[in-house]
């Protein structure tokens, strides 16, 4: 998220963060043995999709929007894995790689063009200055929102269908997924409106023409975002079957399939309409809405305070515990104190022993005589006998 744009693109879109999805698909044998674990994956996935999407709706940094969008799409993939539709998850991973890389690179192109500005509120009207980027971004936006026939439609539809088919839990997941899809559509179009349409707002810095070296990859990705989904989930599943198992072949037509596909498209359209209404027709509405729901807005803007909660629940207590209990009490006070005490006792005894050394001759002579007396006592008193008789007396008393 904070890295340079192409790096973000690569990391977020294709490789690193999706590794988890890949890992689940790869180790699906383990997950298949534990329906509970799968359920957890599915619920976590759905929740991730929803939470990240809601956060994405209020972000103003263009790259942050995309970053939360990535998290949200990852949630979709997890959800797919959680309902054992591994190939659908991987399918979405692939299509998502196309359009998310595209969006990131397009965003990079935009940022480059407006002189490093990343705040959406300061952009606007860029379709005029960056027509190619605008066109390409539109493809990406349509793809991620899930419009037919763009790539995102096919994979997202496969996931939602698989969820719907997955019993009671699946229905709930489907509802949540559908709502996330709506939000997805909304926030990408919000980005699209803010960045490209309307009037240029207050970005400083000169316009840079986007060079073809930047546009070339974008075009390729755009083509993939358009056509990448046409391969279809059936063929993709068959392709993955050796790895993910061929138990479920998703899709397969029918009314249900059609209804679900239509509902997916419908929510995408709805998202577009809401964005259109809020950011084109009533540009003041978002601010009013935020003012009307201050708590909700703040909650979203602060990402549900997740970082803060981690900080308060894990990091702060851990650091405090380490600092005060472990370091000060255990390390310094107890362990250090113990060593200090041992040293102190030795030193103190030493000081007392030095007092012995009065420098006074008479006392020295007295000590000498006392020592001699002690030695004589030691040698002359038959200690063994004395001790034996003492213990005998003791025993005798005990006997009484």
């Amino acid at each position, binding site marked *: 998220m904070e890295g340079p744009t192409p790096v973000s693109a690569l990391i977020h879109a294709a490789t690193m963060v999706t590794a988890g999805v890949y890992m689940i698909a790869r180790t699906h044998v383990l997950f298949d043995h534990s329906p509970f674990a799968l359920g957890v994956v599915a619920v976590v996935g759905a929740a991730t999709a929803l939470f990240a999407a809601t956060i994405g709706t209020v972000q103003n940094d263009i790259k942050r929007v995309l970053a939360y969008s990535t998290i949200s799409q990852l949630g979709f993939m997890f959800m797919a894995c959680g309902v054992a539709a591994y190939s659908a998850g991987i399918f979405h991973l692939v299509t998502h790689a196309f359009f998310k890389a595209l969006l990131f690179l397009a965003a990079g192109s935009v940022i480059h063009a407006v002189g490093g500005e990343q705040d959406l509120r300061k952009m606007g009207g860029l379709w005029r200055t960056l027509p190619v980027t605008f066109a390409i971004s539109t493809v990406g936006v349509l793809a991620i929102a899930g419009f037919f026939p763009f790539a995102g439609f096919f994979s997202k539809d496969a996931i939602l269908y698989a969820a719907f088919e997955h019993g009671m839990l699946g229905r709930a997941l489907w509802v949540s997924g559908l709502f996330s899809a709506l939000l997805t559509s909304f926030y990408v179009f919000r980005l699209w409106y803010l960045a490209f349409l309307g009037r240029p707002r207050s970005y400083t810095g000169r316009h840079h023409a986007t060079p073809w070296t930047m546009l070339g990859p974008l075009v390729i990705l755009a083509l993939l975002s358009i056509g990448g989904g046409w391969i279809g989930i059936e063929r993709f599943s068959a392709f993955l079957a050796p790895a993910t198992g061929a138990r479920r072949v998703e899709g397969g037509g029918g009314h249900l399939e059609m209804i679900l596909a239509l509902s997916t498209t419908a929510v995408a359209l709805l998202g577009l309409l809401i964005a259109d209404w809020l950011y084109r027709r009533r540009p003041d509405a978002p601010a009013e809405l935020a003012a009307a729901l201050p708590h909700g807005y703040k909650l979203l803007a602060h990402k549900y305070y997740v970082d803060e909660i981690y900080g308060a629940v894990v990091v702060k207590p851990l650091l405090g515990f380490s600092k005060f209990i472990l370091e000060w009490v255990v390390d310094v006070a107890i362990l250090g104190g113990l060593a200090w005490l041992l040293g102190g006792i030795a030193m103190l005894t030493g000081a007392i022993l030095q007092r012995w050394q009065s420098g006074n001759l008479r006392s020295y002579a007295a000590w*000498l005589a006392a*020592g001699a007396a002690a*030695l004589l006592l030691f*040698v002359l008193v038959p200690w063994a006998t004395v001790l034996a008789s003492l213990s005998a007396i003791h025993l005798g008393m005990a006997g009484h």
Partner: protein
Amino acid sequence: MNPVPDIFRILPEVILTVTGVAVMLIDASLPPDWARRPLGWVAALGTTLALWASLWQLSLPVGTGFYSTIETSPFTVFFHVLICGIVLVALLLSLDTLPEDSHHQGEFYALIVFGAVGMCLLTGAVELLLVFIALEISSISTYILAGYRKDTPRGPEAAIKYFLLGSFATGFLLYGIALAFGATGTTQIYEIARLAPTAENHGLVLAALALMLVGILFKVSAAPFHVWTPDVYEGSPSPVVALMSTAPKAAAFALLLRVLYEMFPSLHATWTPLLWVVAVLSMTVGNLAALRQENVKRMMAYSSIAHAGYLLAAFAGFGSSGIAAASFYTAAYAAMNVGIFAVITVASGYDEKRPLVNDFRGLIYRSPLLGSLLIFFLVSLVGIPFTGGFFGKFYSFTAAVGGGAIWLALIGLLNSGLAAAYYLRLALAAAQHQTAKEAKDAGPTPQVGIAVGAALLLAVAATLILGIVPGEVLRAAEAGAHVLEAPPVQTTVLVGPVLSPPAP
């Protein structure tokens, strides 16, 4: 077996006496404005000759001379060589460090040599009266040497304290001798050993043992008879402390070994626990009191008390292992202690204006040689392997464990851990950076002359040899131990006056 002329039995003592007398006479006959330094070389030469003579005595059959009053055996040779070695180093040390203009330099050398005569006699004597005389010879010269710096207040005080307390302690010894005579009717050690177990009045024998131990433990500065040590060491000139913290102690330990293992082996069960207590007390008291000590010489005085304790631990060992360990320890302790006092002598100078631990700060920066040597000897005193101090402790505690005194060994070794604290304080002070002001205060860099260099070389070599290849020395100590365990067979039982006409 050819009878050995009696004079050969005391050849080293004779050589030393002649040397001492010669030094004194030359000193008296030289014009007052001539330097007395060459006299030191004469004394050193005599001591070296005496050392060779002692070694030569090894070729004599083990036996006694002068009517069974003096013995020559590997045991006596071991201690003779040790004492002569120490005296030699002390002489070399004094040669370079006594100020040119100090008065009575000739006497100084003569006294050292006379002291050596007493100590050598003490190790060879097998007759309690001779023991007493030898002890007095060595003590009196040491008393005088302790007060050699008459111009400082501490010097005479040290001498008086040492003299009075020493006489007091010797009184106990003498009383013990009298009781031993009373119990057995003889003062010949072999005879007492033979008669003591069957003595009518066993209490008298026990009292004799106790009182003699008082006298001897005073000389080795074992607790609780150690109180004199710090004051005397502090007041005496460093070269003298180098001598008197080692040579008279070595002689006294030889006497202790003789008294306990040769004279009263029958009382083994009595004196073992006694020495156990004394050993623990000595090392603990010595080390604890040294911990806070700021004056280096006082610190080393306490250290010597602690070392007496480690040494006494060897007496918990059975028979020859204990004797050998104690003898070896004496040698190891002498080597490193002479060495460290040599360094202290050179580093703090004759007048000892800067006697505190902090005054040694940055010694390794001022004089790398002295600093390194100081650390080296301290490391040996700590008991780090590959130095004499380690094997000394090792043998001593091995003897103790062999004798079943595991706790003594454990206490002893923990004590040496405690001791590391103050040895290290001095060593680390020497290794520490000094500020520019301190460097200025510290005065000129101490120089190491030829004689001191030779003395240091001897001490370092001895410490290293004892630490890396201790085999030869240990073998010598064991040979001595066997003699003590099985004294030379007495052919003629001495009855009647000791002073009979000389043999034809």
